[in-house]
């Protein structure tokens, strides 16, 4: 095509952009006219489409010529067809309207007897791959893939085309139905076909592991053939290595399945891996040979780690990796660190890796940021209790010189490691404060929120942190984030240090206020709140603070103005009652997944193939961000004298999900120890369930609290247990108070809750393990009603008084606590009543009241059980109609309708309940039945 060559040469001669633009515009105008005139020969059309494509590649906008490309596709000449397809794939994308026009041409080429045309059509589908194409053509592609008549080069393309369609629209491909025929192709004589189909299976097997199980033996056999038996065609040798792409695909495929249980297969696989390790000792002849060899080695190590991270092969691999991270070649260092991070992320045995700690820390100073990143990942993965101090202090040192792009991630990781592996709280506070002061701008909000949460939840930390934060705020370069932490902590715990030299109330206030004017509005608002707390804590500096409020009453910003006015008003009231209530100490935060981890996980999102492992310690690979100092603390407590108590405190059982698994670790490990340490422990070893051991007389207290009121749940000569609760929708909060009535300390105190299925109970903090004489301690529980709980939670309280005592109680958290009363009109009520209909969603009971029927009492029972009484719905006076909605977080809402018909002559009740769930109907009936008796 001479015209094209001339045009390209012309463009190349344009030395400045303006000239190029001029030339392009001229050509575009020319082509537009030619296309408009029509009746172009195939050759001309092809030439012009080519010119358009060239302009497109240079980055110019091409908004016409699509139709001409589509026309070329149906040409009988191969060269024109080929350019037509190229044009379509470059200019169109899957959502283009024109796709519809090409589907038919493509189908025709797929059905053509000429394989070359089949190939062009397959390319087009693989390159565009929209839903419309997938739906119309997936069947044809499958036919070309599995047909015994298909030539190898068509099969290869069909396999990958199907892969592309599956990735975009997995629902269109009935993969499990096709699994067997597709999997059989792994045995194909042609290595190219085998390679393509393995890629396809790798994607399908991640979605349908069951259906593709049979690929395991086939993959192993094929690997064995190529690697151990060295059976392959010479065409596929790449720098002395037989088809490295296939080897790696197969090694990767096996990582998506659990290790095979067939002993023959696993021996074959072991041979394969051992051969790869042995081969890697060979000195490579050139870069290509080296890369291919190492690429396979790294993949083999990844597979070996997946199969058994304690195996002999992995041990050999660790030694090889240790050499790699010292390599002079940057690529090898990079990959060595990456693979070692994989090993560190899944293994329990970190000792081998720890030997190289120094080298790894040095890699943070590598010339290449890519290597530095890998070093950081590895340090993060290999961190545990023993080396956390070294690693964190190295990282903090490095932070000052680290790349800007890396700093935020580093700060996050340091904060997480510190929290996760800290053995002393004071160290945790030191590190975080140091972090905030030295990398302030890179410290996300989450980091300072978290430190506040932890300080609030751990009493022992409060004084120390107040002292430290005051110290940091006095340094000349105090970051605003430090001021936020300082504002919060001093406002809450400033009084704890007020007697220390240099920390008197007015000095605390001056330290904060010195920087007030330089802060953002949000920080100033926070500080105003601190000041009102100061008014409460330190009446002696009230004057200075009132002056600030007074000044800010006239500031322009609405938020600040409002706070200043309100605080001023509260502070100048005649009595301090309101001030004291408002400034009461903050309650503890409920334990939840650290916001830091969720932030970090956000950063590592998946794209196409699933990762076979995640960066981070072992727990991040078990999907349990088991974290928090809390758990740690329990472990430590356990190792001191209070084994039982510490451990029990840790295991609020059935908290569901992450915490549960985390807790079980401690629980299981210490269970044996606890029985050894305190043989007197009557813990339900005899196989008694908690229910069988409920404290005598518990029913009396329980029944009194059943309607949700606050009061005493249990009392004996030693202990008094009180309960307070509130509910909203599917959530609830229960505060429990444990009072020691004796004049001596109660030791080894522990509380465990057993929640029924469907209800999640989480405690807010770790309870103290002892209660002083005549004192009371408190525990808060958050409840979440996920499904329909058919039982109430049980609680076990144990303590040491001479011997171990245990008390088992029921918590008055019935299903009705999660009801929300509503009111319905008569018409609505009966419409729904009919809609729900009779059994099984209706539950009815007719029973005799134990005492004379009292309508007011019956009404109170309904109201206390959170049902909304609808007046004037039932025509007969004295009958009750009530409605409510039952809330769950996972199963949605359940509407509840009720009719209660008392017969005062016979003292009988007829209770009828209809709800949208038969389980709820049944339980609601039982609860109300008992309550009305």
């Amino acid at each position, binding site marked *: 095509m001479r015209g094209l060559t001339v045009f390209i040469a012309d463009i*190349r001669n344009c030395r400045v952009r303006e000239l190029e633009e001029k030339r392009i515009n001229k050509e575009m105008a020319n082509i537009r006219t030619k296309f408009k005139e029509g009746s172009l020969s195939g050759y001309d059309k092809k030439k012009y489409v080519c010119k358009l494509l060239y302009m497109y590649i240079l980055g110019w906008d091409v908004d016409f010529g699509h139709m001409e490309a589509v026309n070329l596709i149906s040409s009988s000449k191969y060269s024109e067809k080929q350019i037509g397809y190229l044009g379509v794939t470059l200019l169109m994308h899957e959502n283009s309207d024109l796709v519809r026009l090409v589907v038919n041409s493509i189908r025709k080429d797929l059905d053509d007897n000429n394989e070359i045309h089949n190939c062009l059509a397959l390319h087009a589908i693989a390159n565009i791959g929209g839903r419309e194409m997938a739906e119309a053509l997936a069947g044809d592609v499958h036919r070309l893939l599995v047909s015994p008549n298909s030539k190898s080069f068509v099969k290869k393309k069909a396999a990958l*085309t199907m892969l592309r369609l599956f990735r975009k629209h997995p629902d269109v491909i009935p993969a499990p139905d096709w699994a067997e025929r597709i999997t059989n192709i792994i045995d194909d004589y042609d290595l190219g076909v085998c*390679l393509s189909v393995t890629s396809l299976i790798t994607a399908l097997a991640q979605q349908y592991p069951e259906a593709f199980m049979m690929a395991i033996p086939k993959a192993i056999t094929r690997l064995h053939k190529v690697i151990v038996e060295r059976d392959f065609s010479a*065409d596929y040798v790449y720098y002395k290595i037989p088809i490295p792409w296939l080897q790696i695909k197969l090694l990767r495929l096996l990582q998506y399945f659990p290790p095979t249980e067939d002993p023959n297969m696993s021996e074959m696989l072991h041979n394969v891996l051992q051969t790869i390790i042995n081969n890697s000792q060979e000195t490579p002849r050139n870069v290509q040979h080296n890369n291919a060899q190492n690429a396979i080695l790294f993949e083999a190590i990844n597979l070996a780690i997946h199969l058994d991270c304690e195996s002999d092969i992995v041990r050999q691999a660790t030694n090889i990796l240790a050499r790699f991270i010292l390599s002079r070649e940057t690529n090898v260092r990079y990959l060595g660190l990456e693979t070692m991070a994989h090993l560190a992320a899944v293994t329990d045995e970190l000792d081998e890796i720890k030997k190289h700690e120094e080298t790894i820390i040095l890699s943070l100073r590598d*010339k290449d940021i890519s290597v530095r990143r890998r070093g950081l990942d590895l340090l993060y993965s290999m961190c545990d209790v023993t080396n956390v101090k070294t690693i964190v202090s190295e990282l903090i040192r490095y932070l000052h010189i680290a790349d800007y792009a890396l700093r935020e991630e580093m700060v996050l990781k340091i904060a997480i490691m510190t929290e996760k592996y800290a053995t002393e709280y004071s160290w945790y506070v030191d590190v975080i404060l140091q972090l905030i002061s030295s990398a302030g701008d890179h410290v996300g909000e989450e980091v300072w929120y978290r430190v506040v949460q932890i300080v609030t939840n751990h009493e022992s930390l409060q004084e120390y942190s107040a002292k430290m934060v005051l110290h940091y705020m006095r340094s000349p370069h105090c970051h605003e984030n430090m001021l936020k932490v300082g504002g919060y902590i001093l406002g809450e715990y400033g009084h704890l240090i007020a007697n220390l030299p240099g920390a008197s109330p007015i000095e605390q206030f001056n330290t904060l206020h010195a920087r007030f004017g330089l802060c953002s509005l949000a920080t100033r608002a926070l500080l105003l709140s601190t000041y009102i707390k100061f008014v409460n804590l330190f009446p002696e500096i009230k004057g200075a603070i009132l002056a600030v409020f007074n000044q800010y009453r006239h500031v322009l910003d609405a938020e600040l103005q409002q706070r200043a006015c309100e605080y001023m008003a509260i502070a100048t009231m005649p009595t301090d009652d309101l001030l004291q209530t408002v400034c009461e100490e903050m309650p503890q935060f409920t334990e939840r997944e650290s916001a830091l981890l969720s932030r970090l996980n956000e950063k590592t999102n998946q794209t196409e193939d699933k990762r076979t492992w995640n960066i981070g310690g072992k727990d991040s690979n078990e999907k349990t961000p088991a974290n928090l100092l809390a758990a740690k603390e329990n472990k430590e407590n356990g190792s001191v004298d209070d084994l039982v108590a510490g451990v029990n405190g840790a295991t609020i059982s059935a908290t569901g999900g992450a915490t549960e698994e985390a807790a079980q670790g401690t629980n299981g490990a210490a269970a044996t120890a606890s029985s050894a340490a305190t043989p007197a422990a009557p813990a339900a070893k005899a196989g008694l369930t908690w229910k069988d051991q409920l404290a005598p007389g518990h029913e009396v207290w329980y029944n009194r609290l059943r309607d949700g009121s606050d009061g005493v749940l249990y009392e004996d000569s030693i202990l008094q247990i009180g309960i307070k609760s509130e509910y909203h929708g599917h959530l609830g909060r229960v505060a429990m108070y444990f009072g020691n009535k004796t004049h001596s300390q109660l030791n080894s105190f522990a509380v465990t809750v057993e929640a029924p299925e469907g209800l999640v109970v989480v405690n807010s903090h770790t309870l103290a393990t002892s209660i002083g004489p005549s004192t009371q301690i408190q525990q808060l529980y958050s409840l979440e009603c996920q499904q329909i709980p058919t039982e109430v939670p049980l609680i076990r309280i144990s303590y040491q008084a001479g011997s171990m005592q245990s008390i088992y109680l029921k918590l008055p958290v019935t299903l009705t606590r999660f009801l929300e009363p509503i009111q319905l009109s008569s018409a609505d009520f009966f419409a729904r009543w009919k809609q729900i209909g009779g059994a099984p969603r209706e539950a009815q009971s007719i029973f005799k009241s134990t005492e004379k029927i009292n309508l007011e009492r019956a009404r109170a029972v309904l109201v206390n059980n959170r049902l909304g009484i609808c007046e004037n719905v039932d025509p007969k006076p004295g009958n009750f109609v009530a409605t409510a909605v039952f809330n769950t977080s996972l199963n949605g809402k359940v509407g509840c309708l009720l009719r209660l018909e008392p017969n005062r002559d016979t003292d009988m009740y007829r209770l009828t309940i209809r709800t949208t769930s038969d389980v709820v109907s049944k339980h609601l009936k039982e609860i109300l039945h008992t309550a009305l008796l």
Partner: protein
Amino acid sequence: MPINYVLLVSRQGKIRLAKWFTTLSPKEKTKIIKDVTQLVLSRRTRMCNFLEYKDTKVIYRRYASLFFITGVDTSDNELLTLEVIHRYVEVLDRYFGNVSELDLIFNFQRAYFILDELLLAGEMQESSKKTVLRVITQMDAMEEEEAKEEKE
């Protein structure tokens, strides 16, 4: 573990070939091309061939005046992707006979056709140099025949 895109960029930052294996809007494509080109061109010679860009890895290698750049998922095997690039260069070299940037400018469509034979859906389709060249030569022969017919 698919390749998401292949870019051929000259040392001056001119695009010589851009092949996308995932669906992206023109705006996203322009952004990736701009960012990645900048990152790669600013790296020095002794550095490794991998770098991170957002949630993907960029794997590149320089041949004379041209950078061959690929974008892959983070879970991909880096070294092997590097060898995919090398295989592509080898095939180009064999086909054009000591390939130069000019060959790829004037025969850009061929560069695309050859890539199509090597990679499909972002996966290695055929790693045998011989097989790829055989298919391409066959295409050329058909084209020549058609050109001859046209003249007559």
